[in-house]
């Protein structure tokens, strides 16, 4: 049985369209200086933001892989 529409298609949609929202958010808060990269704790927050995105991508990717194995 083909599970593409139940697994990797929604995955790509989620992290493809989600990336547009997420990275526009990061760009916007950086561009407006709301996230001020001159401040050390803001630099740490920027790392946390990217780690968070990677974390959720990994969780969904691993769960999908395990389910299809």
């Amino acid at each position, binding site marked *: 049985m083909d599970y593409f529409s139940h697994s990797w298609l929604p995955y790509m949609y989620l992290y493809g369209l989600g990336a547009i929202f997420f990275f526009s958010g990061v760009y916007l808060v950086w561009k407006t200086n709301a996230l001020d990269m001159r401040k050390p704790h803001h630099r740490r927050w920027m790392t946390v*933001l990217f780690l*968070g995105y990677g974390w959720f991508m990994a969780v969904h990717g691993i769960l999908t892989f395990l*389910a299809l194995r």
Partner: protein
Amino acid sequence: METFHNIGTSTDWIVMIIYFMAVMLFGSYFGRYTKNTSDFFFGGRRFSWWLITMSIVATGVGSHSFVKYSAKGFEHGISSSMTYLNDWFFVPFFMFGWLPIIVYSKVRSIPEYFEKRFSPSARFLATILLLLYMIGYIGIGFLTLGKAVIPMLPEAFTMMGAVVDITLMRAIIVIAIITGIYITFGGQTAVIFTDLLQGVILLFAGFLLFFIGISYLGGFSAFWDLLPTTWKLPLADFNQPSSFNFVGIFWQDAVAGSIGFLFMNQGLLMRFMACKSVNEGRKAAAINIMFVLPLSAVVVGNAGWLGKAISVATPDIISPKTSPDEIFVVVASIITSPGVFGFVMAALTAALMSTVDTLINATAAICVNDIYRPLAKFFGSTFKNEEEKDRKELYVARWVSIAITILGVVAVLAFKNFPTVYEAHGYFHSTLTPPLVVAIFMGVFWKRFTPAGVITTFLGGVALMILGARFPGILIAPFDHGIEMNAARPYSYIRAFYNTVACVGVGVFVTMAGSLYAKLSSQFKNEDYNGSAKMMISSVIASLAFLVILFGFQSISFQLVNAFLVITLVPLIIYYYVPYDEVKATEGLTALSLESAKRMFKGSDINDTEGQIVEIQYQLDEELGKDIRFSQNDMDKMAANVGDLVYVSDRRKWLGGLKSIHAVYGEPHAEDGIVYMSQSNIESGLFDEGRILEAEKEM
């Protein structure tokens, strides 16, 4: 569909009653820390991130979650967890846009932001939309509570010789009375601490159920092997079935829901505002979304996954036809022993009550702030002093809480006919969040977004949304991604996409055409009487056009023409009648001007030099006002100047900031390790005599 009654034993009921009494006592104990409306609604802006994170668990997980996610877990498997793992996309906007703005601008409610950023009329419309949203949310909470409790109750009981049927609505009314009593006398500090306790218990109860269930099935491998492949996948099928599909839920939950949850859930925002600083709020949000929500996804959905596995292995124990909304209770009763079942059910229902409590408290905050205060100002009410004003507002807040509880019960009627709570909630979110979400978003991140933009987004957006709901096959179908339209409940989730596009479209159109409208409006203003008459006629046409849409007169094309009239005339009317100073309205209220926001919050220039935390003991100085006085050496350690803001708290970390104050550095003295403060600061900080305190510069 198979439904249940009388599940559980008398031991379970005893455990539940003891649990509820313990939680009520716990809440009442912390309720004594409620001294004014700031404490009642915001807990005094004093708490640490970990306390707020845990207290958010019970708010985010408690409401409807156990019932609705177990139902979807039973019907569709692990993809029930989707909605808990898709909130990260909008976190940058929240952490560095909305959160600092609401804290630094000192707004007490979302509508108040609309007045500061736009105009009183924008605040009025935002209040209406937000109240509808909050009361609807409370209704969903009550509905879930009712559905959770009904399987445990008998079908009827006899009272004074008469047989009384236990219906869903009757159960909900009794629950509402208990909930109302608690919130009315507790306030936000009580809710935060009760939620903290319940957050921990909730996670414990959910995992306890999961481990007992896994053991019941013979281990994790047995459980995993019993699940069909589609039940193991973490995301739902792209576009089918109409009652649960990935793309619809993406737009309804990951987009509208996540923004709604982070940006316009007054209950949640009040929790973040109760944090001692913006950075603590960011920590609470990050830890909650990254770690607590994924754990919560397991906690709330596992009963459904276990139910599916049991129904595959032994369909005579759990029938595949079991009502999905009852699966949590059914599974819990089968796999646990008497007493443990009572504990799990108590944790569930008490947490549900917590969520409803938080929402009622938040809605009361909106009513006091956005209805009572403007009305009191309008009617020229006077108070002897701030204390009397505060006492009066607290009194109003308590009565309003009761009224909201009643309205919440009435709101249940709108949702009770949906097949599951999940669909009711999805439909509700898709419909009510887009206008406010779009308005907040554009207001925070687009300086050119004006009162005309926001009011037309509300009115024109709602007009297009009404048309979408009335003609889904024509207007929503182009956005449906291939989802089949269910005639009974058309496009429950994907309508969020259409609604969002409609509201964004209206907002962008009005903002882009802003200069044209400004020119037209000044032309009309120069025409004196003629201009005024033209605007009166435009207002009447726009109002009639909105009524045509509201009541659905004539054909779709006629109604679309009327929507066009609303969208094109309302901006002109607003430009003409509503005064707006862009510089003043955006200063400190958009993401572009956060530094100004901080300066306005502090009242002077920001001192961002990083300092240390110092330990001190307090001494009373009756002469002092809001200022507190440290030694020069201690101030140097904290890198603080006179006039900077300071946060002083009890050194015991486990208190989470319960005993703390925010104050201003006064003139220094020479005694290291001593801080002088007034009696009112000592009382407000709940400081114990002789205890070591910690002080750090806030900004």
